[in-house]
């Protein structure tokens, strides 16, 4: 049985004197009846796939609808000008989030994390950091376990699908997972990881799923940027010693409550939100011709 709460996972970490990532790995090995090594190999494959997938980006490729594709290249070129508002590292994070979002829309290979629509958040945070700073591959794979463990707790208490709980469940969850994962890389313990995840989730709570024409393109690609930048901000807050006054488990429960109350037109139906705007409707009509 996977962890139903961060509290439960933290109790185990304390009792056995293990880090959060290890608690997640042990649980995975137990649940699937595989060895710790086999579990690690599988996670290593996911990590390597993320690295390779990002590099497959082609700046000139556009999606079938023609709505997205070039954003990653534009952000890259802008960053190379050296005059970004957010600084070089954050600009790289943003450009990588866009690239993965565009890759997904253009039918390239991605790792759903936790979903295809939110596939850019985690690599934008983790791969960018890995390439910018000296971190071992081993630490990165541990961070992937942290992300997966947090995602599983969210799945157990709430949901990860836009159709169920809106974009807060997809980009929001991806952001919470990435925030916790990057805190692990910075040497934080399960407690700090929980605070980072909680703050990232709270900042995106209520985010609706309103894909124009029902496609995973607008506004999904750019929301990956929002999720990634928010993850780093939440992680920095947690690493600064700022705590979430609401424990992460209760934040997840609140997210579920918000999702349950969300109108169906705002849950991946392509009806409400920006999908329902005049410009969104115009795109829908053009594509349906």
């Amino acid at each position, binding site marked *: 049985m996977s962890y139903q709460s961060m509290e439960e996972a933290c109790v185990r970490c304390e009792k056995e004197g293990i880090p959060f990532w290890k608690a997640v790995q042990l649980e*995975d090995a137990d*649940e699937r009846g595989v060895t710790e090594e086999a579990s690690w190999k599988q996670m290593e*494959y996911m990590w390597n796939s993320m690295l390779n997938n990002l590099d497959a980006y082609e700046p000139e490729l556009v999606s079938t609808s023609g709505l997205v594709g070039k954003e990653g290249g534009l952000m890259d070129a802008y960053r190379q000008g050296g005059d970004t508002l957010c600084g070089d590292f954050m600009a790289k994070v943003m450009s990588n989030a866009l690239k993965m979002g565009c890759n997904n829309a253009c039918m390239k290979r991605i790792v759903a994390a936790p979903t295809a629509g939110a596939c850019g958040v985690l690599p934008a945070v983790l791969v960018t950091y890995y390439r910018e700073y000296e971190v071992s591959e081993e630490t990165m794979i541990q961070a992937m376990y942290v992300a*997966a463990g947090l995602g599983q707790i969210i799945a157990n208490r709430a949901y990860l699908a836009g159709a169920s709980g809106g974009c807060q469940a997809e980009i929001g969850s991806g952001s919470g997972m990435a925030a916790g994962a990057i805190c692990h890389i910075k040497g934080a313990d399960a407690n700090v990881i929980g605070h980072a995840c909680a703050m990232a989730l709270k900042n995106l709570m209520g985010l609706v799923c309103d894909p124009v024409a029902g496609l*995973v393109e607008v506004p999904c690609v750019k929301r990956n940027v929002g999720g990634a930048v928010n993850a780093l901000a939440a992680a920095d807050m947690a690493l600064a010693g700022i705590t979430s006054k609401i424990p992460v488990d209760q934040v997840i429960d609140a997210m579920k409550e918000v999702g349950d109350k969300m109108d169906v037109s705002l849950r991946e139906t392509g009806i409400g939100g920006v999908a329902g705007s005049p410009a969104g409707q115009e795109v829908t009509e053009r*594509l349906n011709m």
Partner: protein
Amino acid sequence: MGNIFDILGPVMVGPSSSHTAGAARIGLIARQLFGRQPEKAAVYLHGSFAATGKGHGTDKALIAGLLGMLPDDMRIPHSFEIAGEQGMEFTISNKDIKEAHPNTAQVVMEAEGVPVMKIQAHSIGGGRIKVCKLDGIDVNFSGESYTLIIRNVDEPGRIMDVSAALTAASINIATMQVFRDKRGGSAVMVVETDQVVPQEAIDDLESKPGIIRVKFLNPNGTE
């Protein structure tokens, strides 16, 4: 909810786990049930598959699956051209299917020397699917584990034949479901196993009277 690799994963070709990865999986299972690459395939899309399928590459993914590609195959966007090269004719059209799940596809497969096969399946999210009709008979299986599909005459003793053949091959049955269109009519057994069912066991079963066809589904895509 599944394991941590349902959270981080699957590795797939975008843009949608339900409309792309799931569609590829439906095509692949259809091919495995048919037992070979069809020479002709007619694909029907219902509900959200019909409405947003083109933008999600649902059509390309289904054809890719019929060509034997897994959901992470980089050739999925080019499946139409590849089908042309390999001589697989196909049509894709929208169809309103009564009381079907919003993400439903029907696939009708033909090839010389084998009976036409028609399956209906839907995509339930996260790249996972359910097959719900096989040649008009209601069924319910996912193909996520080793699955043996047996078409047989609805008569006494056929379940024992299957159980005996699997016992002889030291294969443990995890779950078993039986379906039929009518008493004494056409039946389907869906048997999930803990081990790969060897070809000899399948051949042995197929040679028995009252057993019409036997197909083994391997979630790893090998045939």
